Structure formats: structure tokens, C-alpha cells
């Protein structure tokens, strides 16, 4: 009983962290068809923003949930104006340019923070459940991701801004014919996407030792989850995160963490081979 609860929490945590990692990329890719390969570095910068802010004596939750998303969102805004704006509609070129950007950010972070591992301690203590020690912070991550998905859904579905954004996503020329500046909407969307990446990086920062290159650990997973999710933003994100999370946690528990990671990747290959348009290209069609 105790063990099954612990395993349940672990699986939920695996899914939640995948959702968290991929959310920013999903917004940017789902709306603007921009594959942001600097996504991992945006997360890395979110982590550094948190650690720096905590170093200046800011409350850790304020740093994580407010400062990091704002800082990274603003960086994203600059990047969008300088580089990505010129490349809309050129999928491969944006991928290459953002890959270049990711290298730039790694270089900058190395120059500023040095090539050493930094970290902060988890702000929530663990607790014992039956005979097992459970990491309390895992619950925080699960709750944050659930809230994140609900908020994203509510904004996209329920607000006027969400409606305009979705309209631009479907027909940008139609939206601009109706008097909305698609340029500005793209800009705002990229800001939101970057802010989400920053948030994810910040929330995950206490769990990992942060180095300038730690973005690389996230980008592949995020990339796979988003592509496998397919055209629908939220349904795709949740369904692919769930399937990959289940597969990887299953193999992590039965064999080893490394096999778990490898199993995730192999599952991705099989999934893309059988459903080249992603999960929501076949199921949940037309959902958000």
C-alpha cells in the first residue's frame, strides 16, 4: 500500500515535470510554429534568475514564480524582436537560429556565472510516509503543473486575449484583416512562452545542480513531448506527457533510471513512426 502510493506519486511527478518542461515550447510551437531550440537555455536562465534573486534575499517562492518568469520573458521578448521576427514561416531556419541562440546563452552564462555547479536547497522538506521517505517538493511540482494547465486552458478558452491568440494561430491574415496586429500578438505569445520556460526552469532549479549547459538536458525531452503531442496545444501536451511519463517511470522502477530515459526516447521514435502527425493528429482532433 505504502509502496504503491509512493510509486503513484513518482509517476505523477514524472508526468508533471514533463508537462512543466514542455509547456513553454508547446505555446511557442503550437501557436507560431516556431521550434525554439533555445528553450532549454531559457529554462537554465530561469534557474539562474531564481538563484541570483534568492542570493539577494528575495523569498524563494517569489523568485521562482514571479521574478524568473518575468526576467526570462523579457529576454524572450528581446530575442523575438532581434532574431525570430525575421524568420516566421521558415521552420528550419528558426530551428537553426534558435540553436545558435542557445549556444550564445550558454556562452554568456559561462562568462557570467562560471562553469561551476550552483544550486539552492529545496524549500519544502520531505516527509515519511509509512516506511518510505517522500520528497515534499514533488507535490509542489505536481500542483504547479496542474495549475499551469488549468490556467492555460482558462486563458485560451475563456478570455478575449486567448480568443484573439487562437484566431491568429489559425489564420493570421484573417486576424490582421480584422484589425489585430499579428506582429504584436506573436510578440506577446513569444513572451508568454518564454516566461513559461523561465517558470519551469525556476521551479525545477532546486532539484538539479545548475550549470550553464544544463538546458541541454531538457530540450530533447521538451522537443519530443511537443512534437509527439501534435497540433492541439493542451490536449497534445497532456496526452504525450502522460504517455511518456508512464513509459519512462515504468522502466525506471522495473529496471533502472538510465533504461527509463532510453525507453522514453524509444517510445518517442515508435510513436512518431506510427503517428507522424502526433497523438492529437489522430485522437482528440479539433480540441484545444
Amino acid at each position, binding site marked *: 500500500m505504502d509502496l504503491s502510493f509512493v510509486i503513484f506519486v513518482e509517476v505523477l511527478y514524472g508526468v508533471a515535470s514533463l508537462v512543466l518542461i514542455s509547456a513553454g515550447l508547446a505555446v511557442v510551437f503550437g501557436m507560431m*510554429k516556431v*521550434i525554439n531550440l533555445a528553450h532549454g537555455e531559457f529554462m537554465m536562465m530561469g534557474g539562474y534568475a531564481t538563484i541570483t534573486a534568492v542570493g539577494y534575499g528575495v523569498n524563494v517562492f517569489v523568485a521562482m514564480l514571479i521574478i524568473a518568469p518575468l526576467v526570462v520573458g523579457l529576454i524572450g521578448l528581446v530575442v523575438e524582436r532581434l*532574431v525570430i521576427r*525575421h*524568420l516566421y*514561416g*521558415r*521552420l*528550419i*531556419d528558426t*530551428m*537553426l*537560429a534558435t*540553436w*545558435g*541562440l*542557445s*549556444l*550564445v*546563452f*550558454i*556562452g*554568456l552564462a*559561462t*562568462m557570467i556565472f562560471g562553469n561551476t555547479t550552483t544550486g539552492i536547497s529545496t524549500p519544502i522538506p520531505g516527509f515519511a510516509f509509512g516506511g518510505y521517505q517522500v520528497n515534499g517538493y514533488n507535490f509542489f511540482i505536481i500542483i504547479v503543473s496542474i495549475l499551469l494547465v488549468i490556467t492555460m486552458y482558462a486563458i485560451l478558452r475563456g478570455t478575449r486575449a486567448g480568443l484573439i491568440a487562437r484566431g491568429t494561430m489559425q489564420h493570421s491574415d484573417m486576424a490582421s484583416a480584422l484589425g489585430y496586429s499579428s506582429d504584436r500578438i506573436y510578440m506577446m505569445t513569444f513572451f508568454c512562452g518564454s516566461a513559461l520556460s523561465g517558470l519551469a526552469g525556476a521551479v525545477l532549479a532546486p532539484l538539479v545542480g545548475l550549470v550553464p549547459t544544463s538546458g*541541454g538536458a531538457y530540450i*530533447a525531452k521538451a*522537443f*519530443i513531448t511537443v*512534437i509527439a503531442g501534435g497540433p492541439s496545444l493542451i490536449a497534445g501536451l497532456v496526452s504525450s506527457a502522460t504517455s511518456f511519463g508512464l513509459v519512462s517511470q515504468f522502466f525506471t522502477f522495473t529496471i533502472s533510471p*538510465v533504461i527509463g*530515459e*532510453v525507453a522514453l*526516447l*524509444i517510445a*518517442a*521514435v515508435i510513436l*512518431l*513512426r506510427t503517428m*507522424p502527425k502526433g497523438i492529437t493528429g489522430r485522437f482528440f482532433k479539433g480540441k484545444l
Partner: protein
Amino acid sequence: MSRRASQDVTITLVVSAFLIWFLPLMISTYTLTVLVIYGMLGLSLGLIWGFGGILCFGQAAFFGLGAYTYAITAINIGESTLPMILAVLVPAVFAALLGAMMFYGRLTDVYLGVITLVVTLILFKFMNSTAGPQYAIGNARLGGFNGIPGFQTLNVPGDPSAYIWGDTYFYVCALALVIVFLLVTWLLRSSFGRIAVGIRENEVRMGLMGYNVAARKTMLFAIGAAIAGLAGALFANWGEIVTPNLFSLGQSAEIIIWCIVGGLGTRFGPIVGAAGLAYLKFMLGQQSMIDNTLIMGLILVLFVLFLPRGLVPAIETLLNSIIGHKKRKPKPHRMRRARHG
């Protein structure tokens, strides 16, 4: 056509002979060797991406696979001829299987990118985790992130004690690059190559004309992997150690940067880009003021924004406009990367 082909070969031979004679006067042959190897690696991606339209995010996988194949078989056999051949064949077969899986499933651009990237990551993660003694192939322990050191390096075929190293090894590598380059030239002039370019330009049309698009793309992909595998084996010989870093994302990224900077759709471009950028990186490694990665990233961003066709085509256009229209104007090469999704 045949006269132009012979001209092509002559020019290649003259230029490469000059470079092989001239460059060692400027740069040490030890550095040059690795530049030549990177040139070959760049050429392998330049072939499948520039002429086949297949953007492979995991060319490093074949590079690393070639290097590992060489190291493992060289330890087991103790002689280098068979391992060299296997280092070409194993990546080619692997790529043919992977390519068949992807191309018969009609996967295109982004999805292709993801799968190749993922396969590279799988190899990287797997190789990193093979530290224990239970991971061994024959006498060769895979060694996890420490890699495999101490294998038999290149020797004169049939005589394991006659090592090829130092200056001689540079000439061997340079010659290998020239031969590969000529083979690529020949391939592109053959009907196979021209059909490959046709597939790059319009896959549906070539399919409707009756060509088996999937089979041809798989073939081309395997050929690219074979070249990358050869480069990997040569690299293993040069470094005398193979590590999982050969499979890393950074390595894959670099190959793509070389191709973009040098110029896609040309044969010289990727070689020039690879050797040039690798040398630049080597020079930058000697200073510590600005981070190396930063400059590489900036170069990639700037090229994508301002010179997306790459150096070699840009210089060609420039030369043509300076020389004017005295010469017969070459047919415009229309180069297009994969269509946006």
C-alpha cells in the same frame, strides 16, 4: 558533359595537391589532420542535406558509431584493415535501417529531425551508462563516459607493427578526403545524384514520375552515414581514444553549423565550413576572454539571418558579378531547404 567532368576532376586534383603541399607549411599537420577529418564529416552531411534535402540532426551518431566500431574491432583483432572497413559498413547499415524506417513511413523535416536527434541521444545515454565490466564486446570494454583508449591505431595493411602516424597519417587522411570528394562528385553527376536533387526539389513529382523516392532517400542517407563513419574511424585513430562525447548534441550541432556557414548545395562549402570553423575554434581555444560557444552561436545566428545560403555560394555570386557576363552565365542553382511545415 564528359569534358566538364574531366575538367572537374583535374581542378580538384590540382587544387587539393596544392593545398596538401601548402597547408602543412602554415599549420601543424597534427591540427590539419583533424581539420581534414572534420571536412569529411561536413561533406557527409552536406551530401545528404544539401543535395538530398534530408536534414539529419544526428550525423554525429554515425560519426561516433564509426569511431566505436573501429575501436572495438581493432582491440579484438589487433590489426586495422578490417576495422576500417567495418567502421564504414556498420554506420551505413545502421543508417539504412533507420532511414528505411523513416522514409518508408513518409516522415519529413521536423519529424525526421526529432527522430535522428533522439537516436543520437539514445546512443549517447547508452554509451555513457556502460561503465561496468559487464559491458564488453569481446576483449573491448565499452568504458562508459571514459570511453575506450588504447586500441590498435592505423597500420599498413597486413603488418600490425607498421603504424601510420604523424605526417604520414595526415597525407593518408587528406588523400582519403580527396577520394571521397571525387566519389561524391561522381555520385552527384550520375543519374542517382540528379534524381536525388530532383527529390529534394519536389518529392511528389519525382514519385509520380515513377521513381522510388523512399528507397533512393534511404540509399543516400546510408551513403552519407558511410562517409561519416569513415571520418569517425579516422578521428578515432587521430585521437587514440573514443568517448561518448562523439555522440553528443554539441557535435551534431557543430556539423550543421559547418554546413550552413560553408554553404548548402555545394560540395566545397561544408568542407570549407568545417575546416574553417574548426580552426577558428582551435584559435579561440587559446584565449579565455570570450567564451568559445558564444562565438559559435553568434556565427550561426548571423549566418541564418544575413547569409542563409552560406559562404561559398555568396563568394561565387560575388565573383560572377565582378567578372561580369564575359563567361557563359551558369544556370541558376535553386537551393531550397526543406519546405516549411
